[in-house]
């Protein structure tokens, strides 16, 4: 069945958020579920890191303000970790 539009949007948003955090906040590209530790999922952790960096409210969720910031044109260098 075709995916319901909302679900499709949500999937695209999540993909966008994931790619942003992989590019700029060294979210591991290959975080397989079985590697997930008992704590917070890595994506939420990295999202909080990004929100803290930009002075946004640290929610760990891709809220509208966070998405708005992610969509801004920017430099390709990561905000954390060393870019080699």
């Amino acid at each position, binding site marked *: 069945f075709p995916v319901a539009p909302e679900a499709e949007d949500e999937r695209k948003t999540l993909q966008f958020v994931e790619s942003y955090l992989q*590019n*700029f906040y060294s979210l591991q590209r290959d975080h397989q579920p079985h590697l997930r530790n008992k704590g917070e999922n890595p994506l939420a952790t990295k999202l909080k890191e990004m929100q803290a*960096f*930009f*002075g946004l*409210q640290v929610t760990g969720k891709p809220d509208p303000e966070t998405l708005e*910031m992610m969509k*801004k*044109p*920017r*430099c*390709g*260098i*990561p*905000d954390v*970790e*060393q*870019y*080699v």
Partner: protein
Amino acid sequence: ITTGNPKWKKNNLTYRILNYTPKMRRADVDAAIRKAFSVWSNVTPLTFQKVEDKEADIMLSFAYRDHYDNSPFDGPNGQLAHAFQPGEGIGGDVHFDEEEAWTKDGRGYNLFIVTAHELGHSLGLSHSNDPGALMYPTYSYTDPKEFLLPQDDIDGIQAIYGRSNAAVQPTGPITPQACDPNLTFDAITTLRGEIIFFKGRYMLRRHPERIETEINFISLFWPTLPSGIQAAYENVERDEVLLFKEDKYWVLNGYNIVPGYPKQIYHLGFPKTVKRVNAAYNDETTGKTYFFTADRYWRYDEKKKSMDHGYPRKIVSHFGKKIRVDAAFQENGYVYLFHGKTQFQFDPHAKQIVREMESISWFRC
């Protein structure tokens, strides 16, 4: 500072522009990049010499998508450019995404601003979380003619290379902090339910339903407006905001600058002896606009579009306080007059000041 503190071991560096974007004249690309280098040489002992045909320390080029450095570009918008930390080979090099709309002004992406940012990385800086810093990760336009390297960036680069050799050490603008008790304002206006506080290049937005005070560059919304707005007021009836600087004023209709502005303030009836307006507010009940210049105030009739006779008058004669007003606005019938770190709440009906507060009291500190 980039992890590991990479830095160039010498102060006299070379750069080479490997190729040019067809979107700008070659001379404009040269000029933008030359100016970007001077941003950093002005505040450090570093010097940059352009070379034409040999390997340079910093190689600048425009590239498409995957350009074999493990960091493919993503087409228009998104990632605009990237650069490598100091080092041999690709170290220090700057790559621009050729698919961006590169320009020398406020349209598209200004090549000077982006180059200056990337050179920060080429010299060993990483991103700053100061929203006013050049090394802040997201793009924001500033008129190159007005560009001043912010203090945050000066501190960063001098931590790596030391101070400039200039007799007078350069300093830069500091990003205003909403809860800084010493914060003062250039101008304040309401704008469709928000309150906009102008300070230098910045505007602080107080939205009734948001907890956070948002700080943006004025140029983010209005690239053609100058920084340092000196007075502003909203005419709610006409959905207009008038913004003043020196002897000129602009009109916003909603959020857009009305074509045909700026115009001269004399157009409003000021005599030529008035060189600037310090503050202004529109009285929502009478429809009159009050302008403040030095220690006097004027009254303008918005319906007749002319100054009322018998003005200017002394501020103290009407407002009961012998002050110079930096900024003013009206909210819920009260007029708030700002002078430095203090604001005075004036009741137009009682014709007296009923309260005195800190200027920053509007921010939920």
